[in-house]
């Protein structure tokens, strides 16, 4: 799949933002006043920034408001609605903490559940795609959850939780990459099943339907950069998981180190999210003799 920057930024940043909101909602850390303002500012900046970025890849952004209408069937619609509801509920909780010195814990819990629910709906946009076997697995929501919780813990300064979550995240990420290698062949799709000609013999594309790339090939059969996959995976695991863990465990605990851990994690997160899209193979490639 084409790794559109807007979609990478959207899933990465809004996941971090809603992850941080989850921690703030349950009162970890139990901030109020200016420090609450600072943390909520970061959470809203990430979540809203990500959501705004997601509209950049739309052909007709002016109609984006209609995307809130189809929650009965569409995960993308559910995601949009839950995101807005989460932001509104958390805003009530944040106003209490920042301006009134009141901790409305029930509102906070509700906001935390809604925030993580938003992350789940985001992940289901991808996990529901039977056409992309690498995404079509429970590991996709698991990964999105872990990225949100681990990144949120880093931002919220929950160091011991962050260390634990980052280690689990790194393991699950490696498992997902490993299982992902075989997912396409395990799903059983071949050029023979795609064309239905398998009972006649082995099928290969003799002539493409058109002389230059079309929308389908650009969007669904993205192959650029696949040769650097191994290097990028190592970079992603190091920066996203191991380096932040090492900083927290081995180095003195101060703001600069915390910032370094967060920046390292975010760069690793972007590398891994780029791979999430660039490596995903869509079954339509079979009609073009490609994967």
């Amino acid at each position, binding site marked *: *799949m084409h790794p559109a920057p807007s979609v990478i930024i959207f899933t990465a940043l809004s996941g971090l933002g809603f992850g941080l909101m989850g921690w703030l909602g349950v009162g970890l850390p139990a901030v109020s006043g200016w420090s609450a303002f600072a943390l909520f500012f970061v959470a809203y900046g990430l979540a809203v920034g990500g959501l705004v970025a997601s509209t950049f*890849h*739309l*052909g*007709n*952004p*002016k*109609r*984006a408001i*209609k*995307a*809130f*209408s*189809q929650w*009965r*069937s*569409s*995960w*993308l*619609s559910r995601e*949009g609605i839950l995101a807005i509801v989460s932001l509104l509920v958390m805003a009530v909780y944040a106003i209490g903490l920042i301006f009134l010195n009141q901790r409305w814990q029930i509102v906070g819990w509700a906001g935390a559940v809604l925030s993580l629910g938003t992350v789940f709906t985001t992940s289901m*946009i991808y996990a*529901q*795609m*039977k*056409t*992309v076997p690498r995404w079509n697995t429970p590991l996709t929501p698991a990964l999105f959850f872990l990225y949100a919780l681990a990144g949120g813990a880093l931002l919220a300064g929950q160091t011991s939780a962050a260390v634990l979550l980052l280690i689990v995240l790194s393991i699950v990420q490696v498992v997902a990459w490993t299982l992902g290698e075989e997912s396409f062949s395990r*799903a*059983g*799709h071949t*050029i023979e*099943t*795609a*064309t*239905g*000609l398998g009972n*006649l*013999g*082995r*099928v*290969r*594309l*003799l*002539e*493409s*339907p*058109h*002389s*230059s*790339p*079309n*929308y*389908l090939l650009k*969007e*669904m059969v993205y192959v650029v950069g696949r040769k650097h996959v191994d290097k990028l995976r190592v970079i992603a695991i190091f920066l996203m998981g191991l380096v932040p863990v090492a900083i927290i465990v081995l180095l003195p605990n101060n703001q600069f180190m915390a910032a370094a851990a967060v920046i390292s994690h975010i760069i690793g997160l972007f590398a891994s999210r780029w791979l999430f899209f660039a490596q995903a193979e*869509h*079954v*339509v490639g079979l*009609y*073009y003799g490609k994967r």
Partner: protein
Amino acid sequence: MTSLPKSTDKKLGLAIDLDTCVGCHACVISCKEWNTSNYGSPLSDMDAYGAQPSGTFLNRVHTYEVKTLERAAQVVHFPKSCLHCEDAPCVTVCPTGASYKRSEDGIVLVNEDDCMGCGLCAWACPYGAREMDVAEGVMKKCTLCVDRIYNDNIPEEDRVPSCVRTCPAGARHFGDFADPESNVSILSAERGGFALMAEQGTNPVNRYLPPRSKADISGNDQIELPAPALEAETGGAKGFLSWLDKALEKI
């Protein structure tokens, strides 16, 4: 709502004959011509006169080679447009309600006024039947020429999809698959019509009729080969030919 109808009164679709299709791409062109000037926005082309022309098409013809160990390769031309699936995943993923499947005839359509161009439906389609129009920013797909098949203003013989009307080989057939007595149902039953990538669970309406098996030409004895390919042999010649053979041998 982008929920799918529980059932549809009719199941309009195409039976595409892979045995008959000659790969001329006339259906591609006539589809483009009809649909660029009728339902919805035009089908735009990008860099049409440049080095890398591309454009929006609702119907494309692939060409495959099928090879077994024993036989010579067989070429199969393979037209592909929307299969109007009964369990269309492109419809349910749509967040805006632009995509829908009609309960009366099963046609899958996009209401372009509601489409925000997110492209998710194209991701959900296993067949590559949906293409985003780059100029309009909306999703385009085969409408089964909904503006022809019910159109009282055109002659009756034209009230079929443009691709069906134009095919010079008669490889595309239009009809109602819900009616077991329809032309397409009978054709599909007789010829063993099959669905594409059935393991995706999309339940396509369109059926493909497999190529008929060709004569086996791997053994020399089964058909007459042209003269130059035969062994030079004159042993059975008699009379004048026998004399001529011997005379020529002596030269």
